[in-house]
């Protein structure tokens, strides 16, 4: 006796939303390359003098608050120690990072990306909401079903922290390392409390940015790497079930 065919429920067609605008996507990838080159070449520069100090001066006879490890060749640009080449990479991509950020911030204010997508509402900061969102993250649910394309509070805080704090701090603490810029803009060394403090801040901000990248990539994988990466290339994002 032939089996009765089981009714196949119609799967709802995947819902595709347009999530990232062109300027966001272009900046994301340009900035990703710049940041990776800057970290790699910066680690070579770090290998030239591994000690970090606070204040205006600091050299071998002075007290270092931290001596960082020697970074291995597979992490550095270039892979064989070459300070002159590392500086070429670093100073060139510093321009890409700084001017890219400036243009992106102005553009994103103008097209209201920042005001619309990154603005933190007061109720999002309530402990209750933060706790719920943390629980949702631990359960690998990253999207509000009612408004899946919106950033959750941890995304907003981390993206805003990178855009408005970490990247600008990296740019200005980097500028403060330049003896020429220090002559032109003496406030650069004042805001950091000395060139060696600026160098320490530059390093700490780099470490925090690296932490962001690690968490960011981990969450991209957990949220579905293909869908997430595609959304940053084409802008189209499939709303998860």
């Amino acid at each position, binding site marked *: 006796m032939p089996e009765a065919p089981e009714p196949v429920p119609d799967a709802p067609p995947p819902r595709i939303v347009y999530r990232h605008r062109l300027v966001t996507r272009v900046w994301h990838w340009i900035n990703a390359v710049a940041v990776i*080159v800057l970290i790699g070449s910066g680690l070579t520069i770090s290998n030239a003098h591994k000690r970090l100090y606070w204040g205006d*001066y600091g050299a071998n006879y*002075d007290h270092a608050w931290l001596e960082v490890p020697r970074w291995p060749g597979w992490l550095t640009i270039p892979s064989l120690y070459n300070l002159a080449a590392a500086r070429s990479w670093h*100073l060139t991509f510093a321009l890409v990072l700084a001017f890219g950020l400036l243009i992106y911030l102005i553009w994103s204010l103008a097209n209201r990306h920042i005001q619309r997508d990154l603005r933190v509402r007061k109720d999002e900061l309530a402990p209750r909401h933060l706790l719920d969102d943390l629980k949702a993250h631990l359960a690998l649910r990253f999207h509000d079903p009612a408004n899946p394309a919106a950033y959750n509070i941890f995304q907003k805080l981390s993206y805003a922290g990178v855009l408005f704090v970490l990247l600008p701090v990296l740019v200005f603490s980097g500028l403060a390392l*330049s*003896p*020429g810029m220090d002559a032109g*803009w*003496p406030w650069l060394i004042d805001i950091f409390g000395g060139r060696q403090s600026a160098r320490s801040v530059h390093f700490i901000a780099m470490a925090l940015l690296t932490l962001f990248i690690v968490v960011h990539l981990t969450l991209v994988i957990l949220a579905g790497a293909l869908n997430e990466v595609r959304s940053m290339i084409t802008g189209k994002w499939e709303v998860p079930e």
Partner: protein
Amino acid sequence: MITRRSLLITGAGGLLAGCDAVGRSPVGKSILGGGEDAQHFLQRSIVGRDALAREFRADQMSPRFRVNGSKSADTPDYLAHAANNFADWRLRIDGLVRRPFGVSLAQLRSMPQRAQITRHDCVEGWSAIGKWQGPQLSQLLDLAGLRPEARFIVFHCADLYRGTPYYESIDLIDAYHPQTILAWAMNDAPLTTGHGAPLRLRVERQLGYKHAKFVMRIEAVASLAGIGGGKGGYWEDSNGYQWYAGI
């Protein structure tokens, strides 16, 4: 099977390895060179010609100022002058000048002096604050009378690197900067051998390797093409360091 994770890791590793290839390729070199030129142009545009490097108080100085680069100049000529306290030594100023001349250490000390407590920034990343004193370079250049075609000032030194005497160069903006001096004194005492006795250049808005030590001769030139490998300094020619070291 290619997992997403291995794809990402391979991608990142490949990017870093690719950088080595790009950095060695002619196109890569010209892009990176363009970045350096852009930094140089931007700094010259933003920073006023006479903007001063910060000067510090005596109590802000490094307790001990590290000696870096050549610790001495091991040529018979230099050692003979050093043994004689540089009494017969003369700094030579020539090249594209109307009146080439030699000047003794005593004469350099009797000229109007500038003393400044400034921060010395090494390309490696460390900084030290010290006090430097000597005549402004501009005075010597004016005495010699620069010819209009002179564009750069080259410093020929006594210390040897792999058999080559050290040399450096700066443009006329830095040569005529008020803080650009030929220091014969450091921290209120004559320069020690380690810090470049009898004379070292201070060019306060640039990194340490521009501050030539053991200066023997100052030459005005129209182009850097005829100096060493043509890039304007020992480290520039030998290792590709940036000629403009304000960054």
